[in-house]
């Protein structure tokens, strides 16, 4: 059985159809990118598979007992005065799944320190998250997600706040996690920096226009004007 099965998914906002008849599966260990222009339904697809938006029709089936990791585009909290330290934020990733009376364990603290060291943000442990740069905040959010040992990491434009050198470091990190067995689902409108790590590409424009390997995606540029534009851009980035 697949990790995720999406069958005949349609999502509407009142009379506007954001997604129509979307069908795909995600297999264990894949590194998948969902591409598409702004307004193509990428964010709606994420909301639907995360259970944040009720589908109009269709079925979304997760493998039983699966643990989801979600990395948002940026902090949902834009208020820089929010009183929360890096440590407090990262610990919520593990505590969310703790049963019963929730308290941080020694193992959680050890994992927190390891992740902080891995992401070169150990010196920020007790700082308020609102004082961090965009890149540092993104690493904190990734650390929060990884605290729960997710089976799949779903990312919504995760590199939008990062500069080009930080993007490539970020994707190297994701590649390592993927090689360690974690399934990756990346939603982006710019595949450039991620092209080296992708197994598969889905191109979305309300429905799925392309679903295949990254090489096929580039080769089949003539299928659609959208893909042509995107693939050309990708090749340019590659050079």
């Amino acid at each position, binding site marked *: 059985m697949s990790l995720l099965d999406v069958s005949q998914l349609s999502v509407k906002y009142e009379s506007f159809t954001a997604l129509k008849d979307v069908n795909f599966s995600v297999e264990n260990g894949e590194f998948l990118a969902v591409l598409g222009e702004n307004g193509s339904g990428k964010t709606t697809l994420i909301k639907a598979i*995360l*259970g*944040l938006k009720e589908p109009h029709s269709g079925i979304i089936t997760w493998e039983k007992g699966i643990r*989801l990791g*979600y990395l*948002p585009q940026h*902090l*949902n*909290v834009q208020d820089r*005065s*929010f*009183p*929360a*330290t890096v*440590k*407090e*934020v990262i*610990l*919520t*990733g593990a*505590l*969310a*799944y*703790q049963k019963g*009376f*929730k*308290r941080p364990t020694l193992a959680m603290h050890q994992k927190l320190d390891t992740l902080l060291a891995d992401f070169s943000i150990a010196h920020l442990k*007790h700082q*308020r998250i609102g004082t961090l740069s965009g890149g540092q905040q993104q690493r904190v959010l990734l650390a*929060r997600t990884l605290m*729960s040992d997710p089976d799949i990491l779903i990312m919504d434009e995760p590199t939008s706040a990062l500069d080009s050198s930080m993007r490539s470091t970020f994707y190297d990190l994701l590649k390592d996690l993927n090689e360690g067995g974690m399934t990756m689902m990346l939603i982006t409108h710019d595949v450039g920096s991620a092209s080296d790590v992708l197994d598969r590409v889905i191109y979305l424009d309300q429905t799925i226009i392309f679903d295949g390997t990254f090489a096929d995606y580039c080769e089949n540029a003539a299928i659609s004007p959208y893909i042509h534009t995107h693939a050309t851009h990708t090749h340019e980035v590659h050079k």
Partner: protein
Amino acid sequence: MTLLDIFSYGFMVRALIAGILIGLSGAFLGSFLVLKRFAMIGQGLAHVAFGAVAIGLLLGDQPLFIAMPIVVVVSILILKLSEKTSVHGDAAIGLAATVAMALGTLLASVDGGFQTELNSYLFGSILTVQQTDIWLSILLFGSVAGFGLMYYYDLFSMTYDPVFAEVSTIRVKRLNLILAIFTGMTVVIGIQLLGTILISSFIIFPTIIAMQFHQGFLKTLIIALSFALATVLAGIMTSFVYDLPTGSTIVLLNALIFGFTYSVKQLRGGLT
């Protein structure tokens, strides 16, 4: 008169106990409500309580027991309305508050017999705190403290990032519902002391004062609880010694502290 004389008056002891327990409950709930930008629910529910007390006075001599379920139900309705994208939270609070105030005023003018008593609920009085209010305050504080200890991390997670919390299987809507119910209870039990006009200060002030200290969430919560305790104690005692209205004294004390901490923060770029 010395401060110790205060404890020889039964009504002062009752006011202190009720004030501390309600103040701590309000500060705890306020830490989440203020940061969720939903703090005005306290003010809105206080207005709802005014209308609910009017219904209570119309029906009998224990208006708070009738007001309690009404305010709790309205707090749930406000939450449900604000979850709909077509009615924002502040609009939902405004709707409920104005309808309740209109209803309260209308009932008082039609019946006429309880106008004076209804007006006494606008500003509250330490003289009116009864033994029943003490028991209600203990029940409220016990419930809020138990809820807080059990769900502290989930409450923090959903306040900081509700989308991540929901994806992480935290029952965000259920926790919001419990927060709204406890806020309704705090408002109703607190209006005896502070009145419907001032009760929301118990929810808002401690957190915004604590936020001036630039700390993490747990420390901010502890600072908020400490200031709630200190201002209730100082406010009740000051109002007794100088014969001032208790609610106003507590609110103005909070305002002074906020003004001071805010100014220091601006001057020093953070207290720590």
